[in-house]
Each structure stands twice: as structure tokens, then as C-alpha cells.
């Protein structure tokens, strides 16, 4: 049932995460009217912090963020799953988690703010693998910097530590001093291997920035920074609202309406939690609803004009699902105490395998030595070993101070057969189908993971490690990409280099959904840079309208 009063704005954005909220902020500051429709609720940070403290399974990144019935998100990485249904030979490797809430999934990210390498945009041209983007690194460089300023990114001086992505400006903040544990790891790698450990660029304050405090090292970037020293999408929401953007929580978009020629989008329709339907009109529309939900929405909106879904004349909506696949091992170092868990979670990376000529046959990767407080894990482990009393306390101290966790981001590859479709068997309370993803790991990624395991074994040996616990199989790093892939040819891609859909001239997609390759660095900074480029395009076009 339509609402009595329709909403309207120059630009209508679906999704309030980093992409949607940063576009809203840019446009609202330029005097453009903006409505942002967010499927999930608005919840404040302190509520999430309290949820975390009361959570028994502390490593559960989704735990502090229970979803609402009208906007469910995956409750965990278990297969089978209550929401994201994965199938295929490597179903468990694509069991992503993400959040449907005001501010988006960066409520629980680690703030890792990598720029992609120039080669990541030219994988096909340089290495004969995967696909090229329809945009080059140089095109995105100014927007990378704009995103770094928006988030507040700290990073190393390129003259001292070149991370491989050329910069015209220094990082907005100086690099975060790495922990004692990371210092020891860096020293070992430097002295005993041909590799190097670099400072990870992070959207984390090393000084007061954007009215947010300096990081105090609560070691809880994931699932929730308790003080907001780390950027997340909620800050762009607050800035955008202050500039006049209108955010509507609990607004589940389910239909994208077009004109009779099927060339322009005219409105989106959303359900409120009681399934009351509302229509929102605009001049431009941006779908910024996360890789999985964006493709789902385009497919759900199928109608007589577009029986295969919106923006899907290529048939590539929902295809080319990619991720960073992870290899992970936890072990007990036989060397001096490291006491991980002092400071932020992820601060240092082995970056030697982010690029190389071998990328013509196996995927790139990077390695984190995770600086994670291991006291809880050590306690569970020591109890399971049968210790009690004084001996238990000795074990907890030893294990907590010597546990090392390594994990990798291994490069996925666009394969049209890795595909998101609408579930035929599961629907939510509003009658909207759940997403389903078929996934088979590309051989390119499998070979990359094999190489990583070799490196991990080498590092375990150097640290005189024992009690190795390898995470079985392959696990997702929750960096999904590719579901509305970018390209120059409308026959095999969904958006062009400006993230505009080939099929509908006023419909843009701001999400990792547009990525043509997935590289190795965390995806968020590139999502933000692409989104800010969308905002730039919209500002120019609306100025001329």
C-alpha cells in the first residue's frame, strides 16, 4: 500500500555504509538534496560495546550486532547459514558476514586502509589472468587521497616505506607505532628471511582527528572500537546529516522503477518493518548496499521490462563473486614472550607477495601477524588440557604471551560461474528471497593458498612454534566483490569506469560489487575512493542539469 506522502530528492541512495554515507556527505555539502534509505536500524556505539562485553563467544564479529527481522544479515560464518546460503564445492569459503545497519559493515572492520596497486587494475593486461578494470590507478589516485582524508588514515612515509601505490600527498597522519610483538616479528622476518614487514595503513587516529580521539589500544577494532578512534561509516552518516542529508532507517528497498524506455530509473520502493510500501523519487540513484545486497536488490527488482533483473542486460549481475580467501594458523612461539593484544588488532603486514611476475599463474596475497589479545583463547586451551589451580594460571600466562596468529588475504579471480542468485526456498518476513551463492575456489587462489602455507610453515619454524592449529580448509575474509562487475564492454559487465550502469543512465553502483579484480589489500578504501568518484560525477552532472 503506497504511503500518502512520497519522498523525493535529487539523489536517492540505497545503503548507509561507507559508500552511501560518504556520497551523501559530499552531495549534501554541495547543496544537493539527498535521501539515504537504510534497511537496518540506527544503533549507537555504546549499545554495541555493551553487547560485546556480554558476549560469551568474544571472537564472534557478528555477535554484538544482532539483526532485525526485516533486514537480516548472516548471523555467523556457519554453513549452512540462516541467511546467506552458500553452495558448490567451496561453499564454506564464501560464507561471508556483513551488517545491515546504519553505518554499515565498518562497525566491525580493523581499519586496514590499503590502496590497491596499479597492477591490480590491469591483471589481464599484465598477467593474462582475470579482468582489467575500466579505470586505472592514476584515475583513482586523487579519490584515494580524498578517502584517506575523509577517514583519517595513518601510514608510513613513502620515502621510508614504499607500499607500492604511488602517492602525490603524504598520509593524513603519521604511521601508528607498532606493538612490541609486531616489533619482534618484524625483526625476525627482517633478519632471517628475504621478506619485510611494513606498517599497515589504517583509518585510525594517531592524533586527535575529525573530533575523534587518538587510539588507546583497546584491541577491539573488531568487533567494535569502544571510543571511535577508528573511522567507521557512522561518522560519514553524522557528517552527512549535519550537512542536510536525510537518512531513513528501517527502509528495505525492494523495487527499482524505470521509465517506459527502461533507460532511466524513476523511483525506488521500500518496505517499512510493517511492510508498508513507500515510493521515493529522484533524479539520480545510487545502490550502495554492499556487494551481496546490491546484486540481490537488482535481481529482486526483475519485472516484465527487465525479466533478468535491473541493469542486467549482460547477464552478469550476481556473477564473478570474488573474495580474499584466508589461510590461518595459530601456534605457540618457543621464543620470548610477545604478549599480543597490546594495541590495535592489525598493524603490520608482510607485503612481498602482493605482486610479482608469478601472478600469471597464482594469486597474490598479504600476511597479517594479528595482534590479538589471546588471554581468553589461552584460558580455554589450558582448561581443555586439564590444568587447574596454580598450574592453570601459569599456563594461561604462558599461552597468552606466546600465542601467534597468522592469516592471509589470497587473491580471488572473476569467474562468471561463481554466482549469486535468489534463494528458491528461503524468504525473509517481508517476502524477499535470501541470497544464495555458488562458489568454487579458482585454481589461481588455491595455488596462492598453497604458497602461503609454505611461508607460514617457514615462519613457524623460525619462531620455534608448537601446537599448530590450522583453520581447516579455506575461509572467507568477508571482502566480497564482483557481483556487478565493471568493464568497458556492456556485453560482459554491469557498470562502466564511473560506476554507472550500462543499462540505466542515472543509476550508479557504489560498492565492492563493481571490482573487476580483488587484489590483496582490504577493500574498504577502494570502495570509498570509487564512491567519492561517483559523488564527483553526480556533482558535475547536477551542476549542468
Amino acid at each position: 500500500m503506497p504511503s500518502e506522502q512520497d519522498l523525493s530528492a535529487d539523489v536517492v541512495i540505497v545503503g548507509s555504509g561507507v559508500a552511501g554515507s560518504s556520497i551523501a556527505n559530499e552531495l549534501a555539502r554541495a547543496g544537493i538534496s539527498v535521501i539515504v534509505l537504510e534497511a537496518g536500524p540506527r544503533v549507537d556505539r555504546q549499545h554495541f560495546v555493551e553487547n560485546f562485553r556480554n558476549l560469551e563467544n568474544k571472537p564472534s564479529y557478528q555477535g554484538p550486532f544482532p539483526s532485525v527481522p526485516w533486514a537480516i544479515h548472516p548471523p555467523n560464518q556457519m554453513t549452512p547459514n540462516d541467511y546467506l546460503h552458500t553452495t558448490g564445492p567451496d561453499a564454506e569459503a564464501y560464507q561471508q558476514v556483513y551488517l545491515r545497519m546504519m553505518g554499515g559493515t565498518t562497525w566491525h572492520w580493523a581499519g586496514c586502509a590499503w590502496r590497491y596497486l596499479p597492477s591490480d587494475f590491469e591483471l589481464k593486461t599484465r598477467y593474462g589472468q582475470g579482468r582489467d578494470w575500466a579505470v586505472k590507478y592514476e584515475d583513482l589516485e586523487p579519490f584515494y587521497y580524498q578517502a584517506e582524508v575523509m577517514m583519517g588514515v595513518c601510514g608510513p612515509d613513502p620515502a621510508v616505506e614504499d607500499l607500492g601505490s604511488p602517492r602525490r600527498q603524504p598520509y593524513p597522519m603519521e604511521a601508528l607505532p607498532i606493538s612490541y610483538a609486531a616489533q619482534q616479528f618484524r625483526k625476525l622476518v627482517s633478519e632471517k628471511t628475504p621478506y619485510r614487514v611494513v606498517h599497515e595503513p589504517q583509518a585510525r587516529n594517531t592524533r586527535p582527528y575529525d573530533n575523534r580521539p587518538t587510539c588507546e589500544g583497546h584491541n577491539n577494532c573488531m568487533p567494535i572500537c569502544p571510543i571511535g578512534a577508528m573511522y567507521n561509516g557512522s561518522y560519514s552518516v553524522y557528517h552527512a546529516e549535519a550537512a542536510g542529508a536525510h537518512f531513513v532507517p528501517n527502509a528495505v528497498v525492494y523495487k527499482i522503477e524505470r521509465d517506459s524506455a527502461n533507460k532511466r530509473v524513476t523511483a525506488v520502493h521500500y518496505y517499512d518493518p510493517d511492510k508498508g510500501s513507500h515510493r521515493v523519487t529522484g533524479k539520480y540513484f545510487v545502490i550502495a548496499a554492499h556487494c551481496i545486497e546490491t546484486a540481490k536488490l537488482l535481481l529482486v527488482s526483475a519485472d516484465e521490462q527487465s525479466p533478468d533483473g535491473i541493469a542486467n542486460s549482460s547477464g552478469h549481475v550476481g556473477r564473478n563473486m570474488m573474495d580474499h580467501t584466508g589461510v590461518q594458523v595459530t601456534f605457540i612461539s618457543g621464543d620470548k614472550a610477545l604478549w599480543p593484544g597490546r594495541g590495535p588488532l592489525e598493524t603490520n603486514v608482510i607485503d612481498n607477495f602482493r605482486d610479482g611476475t608469478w601472478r600469471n599463474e597464482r594469486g597474490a596475497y598479504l600476511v597479517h601477524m594479528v595482534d590479538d589479545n589471546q588471554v581468553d583463547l589461552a584460558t580455554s586451551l589450558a582448561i581443555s588440557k586439564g590444568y587447574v589451580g596454580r598450574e592453570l594460571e601459569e599456563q594461561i600466562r604462558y599461552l597468552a604471551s606466546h600465542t601467534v596468529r597468522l592469516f592471509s588475504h589470497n587473491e580471488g579471480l572473476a569467474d562468471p560461474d561463481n554466482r549469486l542468485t535468489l534463494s528458491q526456498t528461503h524468504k525473509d518476513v517481508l517476502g524477499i528471497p535470501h541470497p544464495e551463492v555458488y562458489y568454487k575456489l579458482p585454481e589461481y587462489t588455491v595455488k596462492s593458498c598453497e604458497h602461503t602455507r609454505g611461508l607460514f610453515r617457514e615462519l613457524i619454524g623460525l619462531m620455534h612454534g608448537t601446537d599448530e592449529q590450522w583453520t581447516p580448509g579455506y575461509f572467507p575474509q568477508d571482502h566480497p566483490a564482483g557481483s556487478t562487475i565493471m568493464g568497458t564492454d556492456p556485453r560482459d559487465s554491469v557498470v562502466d569506469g564511473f560506476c554507472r550502469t550500462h543499462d540505466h543512465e542515472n543509476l550508479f553502483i557504489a560498492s565492492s560489487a563493481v571490482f573487476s579484480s580483488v587484489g590483496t589489500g582490504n577493500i574498504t578504501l577502494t570502495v570509498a575512493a570509487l564512491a567519492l568518484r561517483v559523488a564527483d560525477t553526480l556533482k558535475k552532472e547536477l551542476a549542468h542539469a
Partner: protein
Amino acid sequence: MAADRSCFPTNIHLASPNAMRMRRALRMSRRDMLLGAMGAAVVALGASRPGFAATEEADPVVPLFLAVSQRLTDRDVLDPQISHALYAGIIHANPERREQIHKLHDLMASGSFASARALASAAEHSDPVFKDVIHEIMTGWYRGVADQKVVVYRSALMFDITKDAVYPKTYAAGGPFYWTQTPPEVAVPTGEPALSPSKFVVEPT
């Protein structure tokens, strides 16, 4: 009620969101003439009769649980309020534990066990079910968890014994960049386990 006094700082809860909400609620109740009397009555009841007092009087196993816990942690002093909350959680999850804890205490009282290890080892030897009971008691005190729920977070003993090196997540207080400093060294432990080992399962994230 002197025996029930917490051995942790009495104001430790004041920083928690629950406590802040409670303080707000209490301020509101004072301002509200209608609800004020009711609020005061609840506060007065809480002050003179903590919620567990009636149960403790009714359940003689409560002090036995504390006594067994002291032996199994090799500690002379444990917080009786936390003890009661852990006991309640363990019993709620599995009512049979009440009798088993009683029997574990009987076993302890029947001999002279100079250490946690001595008691735990003898207990498992006498009845394998005691291994599970002891696991739950250890999990309660050291992880702060019973019945798969957080009973205490910051007050879990695992943080007490590591407080010279790390903070419980979300409660860091070392100042910016404290993490660059050298933490304490830890010697390789020499003690032996008391119980047979169990499979260790890492819960999914």
C-alpha cells in the same frame, strides 16, 4: 553481610553501561514523585538483601561451591557474589551439577588435598563426571562464563593474572602507544595437568 563483601573495588561497576543506565534510572525515579517511593523501596530492598541472599539460605551447596572453588583455584579468597552467580549459572544449565558439586565437596572434605591438582586428579579418578564439573568451575572463575553466558567480564580471573601485561578488550588504560613498551617475560611452565585432556574446539566467528 560482611562475608559477602566483594574483594574487588566496590566502584568497579560504576563505569559499566549497565551501571550508567541504572544511575540514570535512579535519578529519574527521584525526580518522579509517583514512582519515587517505589524506586526507593526497590533500592532499599536491594541494599539490605542482595538478590542471592534468600537462595543462599535455602541452598546449602552455595558455600560448598565456594569452598571447592577456593581449592580448585589454589586461592584463599574468592568473591562470594561472583561465586554465587557462577553456581547459579552452572546449576541452571544442568541441575544435576548441584548434587555433583556436593559430592565433590564431600570428597574434598574426606581427604587432605594440598593443591587444586591433587583434588582434581583424585576427583576424576573417583568419578569421570567430576572432570566436567571441574571444567565448568574453571571456566566460570577464569573465563567468567557459566551457562554459556558472561557472568563477569573484567573480573574474570584470567585478566587478574595477566593484568601486568594486557587489558581486557575495550578497557585499555595505558595511554596512547603503551603497546610499544616491553612486556614482562614469562618462564616456561613446569606444572603438570591434573585432568585428562579434552578436545579443544574453537568456536566459529
